[in-house]
């Protein structure tokens, strides 16, 4: 019976970290540690002597993990980026789900798989939530700009809100541009002229 795997998750967002840790503890037989503060990351990871390190693929501090892949790096055993060949198409799926995994030298594919399956499912969910949040924020921002552009037109041309909106929409259609882009251009131009 091999000993339990030690997994380190690098994640600054506390709620997201808890969600990932819970999923991993339920889905795979492993010990999970979270690193939230990424200052001196490679050294902190080395202290846990992990078998697997998981990090969001878009995390800017990912490059700090590259040091772990070096024989002269801070770990006893160098880790490799988890790549296909080790466990079929799993690496590709992981990348699409937005998780990158670093696995110590010599760990068998069967032992990695349950951890990766769980991590992939969880990161996919996290990514989807984040995309939805970003989309909502963007829509809200655009809405604000359109409102300001409408206000500017109403004031400058003495028209009502409906007419101002219609004018923006017609301009956007005539120029083949997005309504929000036309509104933004107007707000910027008015800022410059005002």
């Amino acid at each position: 019976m091999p000993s339990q795997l030690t997994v380190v998750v690098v994640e600054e967002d506390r709620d997201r970290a808890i969600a990932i840790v819970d999923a991993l503890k339920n889905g795979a037989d492993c010990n999970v540690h979270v690193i939230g503060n990424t200052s001196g990351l490679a050294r902190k990871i080395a202290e846990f002597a992990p078998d697997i390190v998981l990090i969001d693929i878009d995390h800017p501090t990912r490059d700090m993990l590259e040091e772990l892949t070096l024989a002269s790096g801070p770990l006893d055993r160098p880790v490799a980026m988890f790549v296909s060949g080790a466990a079929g198409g799993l690496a590709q799926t992981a990348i699409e789900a937005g998780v990158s995994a670093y696995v110590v030298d010599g760990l068998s594919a069967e032992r990695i798989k349950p951890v990766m399956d769980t991590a992939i499912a969880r990161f996919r969910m996290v990514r989807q939530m984040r995309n939805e949040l970003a989309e909502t924020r963007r829509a809200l921002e655009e809405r604000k700009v359109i409102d300001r552009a409408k206000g500017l037109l109403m004031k400058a041309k003495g028209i009502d809100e409906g007419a101002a909106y219609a004018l923006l929409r017609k301009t956007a259609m005539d120029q083949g541009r997005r309504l929000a882009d036309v509104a933004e251009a107007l707000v910027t131009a008015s800022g410059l002229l005002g």
Partner: protein
Amino acid sequence: MKTVTLPVAYVPLVDAAPLIVAREMGFAESEGISLDLIAAPSWSSVRDMLAFGRVDAAHLLSPVPIAMAMGLGGVTTPLSAVSVLSVNGNVIGVSREIEEKLRDAGFGFDFTDPVAASDALSRVCSKPLTFGVPFPFSMHVELLRYWCENTALGADGIEIRTVPPPLMADALAAGDVDAFCVGEPWGSVAVDQGAGALLLPGHAIWQFAPEKVLAVRTDWAETEPNLLGRLMRAVWHAGRWLSRPETRTTASELLSRKEYLDVSPELIDRALSGNLTVTSRGEQRHVPHFVEFHAGAATFPWRSQAKWIAHRLGRSHNVEHDSVAHVFRADLNRRHIAPTGSDFPGASEKVEGSIRLETPVASARGQLTLLPNSFFDGRVFDPSPKD
């Protein structure tokens, strides 16, 4: 010619300019391609996107494809560096604390003399200095090591740690690093934020260091020669456009856009013009060829450059480094850039560090002049095998 969309990954830096300009100024379009530029948050992410086929080409640190061929790092997919995207462009800087110590010791921040800078640093600092760099396989690391091992700081006088450039100012403030070597605009950002001062440009250590390359998967280069050629020519034209001084303002404006670097055009202009502000007191220094996209056959991937990088990596990591020079594809560069009418050097290797003055060299059309490529200590690197 049907327009084909090519996904290309890059890190938002001044030296991604040839890709951005190729897209924005119509050079890609005139080759019948449309560049889908994907900004990446880290170099590992650029490498993975390229290795796993998410993108077909990438803006990559010149040592990365060579390190991969040597089995270093996490991923080993064979890559080809088909062109050099930029030569030089890095800066070495120190924290405010060290800046003050250097100033008190009478150091003038001349921004030209690596020997004097190393002397001054070793005099004011008692413990080994920790330098932050963007990636373990980078020209940043190689220039730092080369500089230190041949000057007062000495090979053991520094530690090198990976810190993503956007976090460098924080790392300096937190005392995680004492100094840094980064690409622009990050050095200028550090100066403007009052986080540190600039000590040397990379150019002062090696006058002609291949900094970023245009990299593709080697199998893709073989199966898509036509697309590869179009991409390489579009980027070559963009580099030539960037080398004309009158395009600088436009280039700075383009790069500064929110979807690219998202910093002020003035900050970008410092690198493009070579007029750098080196301290938060506003002291300015001019560096000729601070970053070069075209002149002196800048885009030609010399196999001797690859050999120098492999030699240095092999020494640091204690691995075999023979037969990786082919990663720099002088052959593909000649074949695909030739239709532009560009002139090519007759040879694919040269003695690195041997050119002290602008030198006309044997070339296909006899019009080629190479720029100085000296190392600061005057040593040369002979790429031919030693028996």
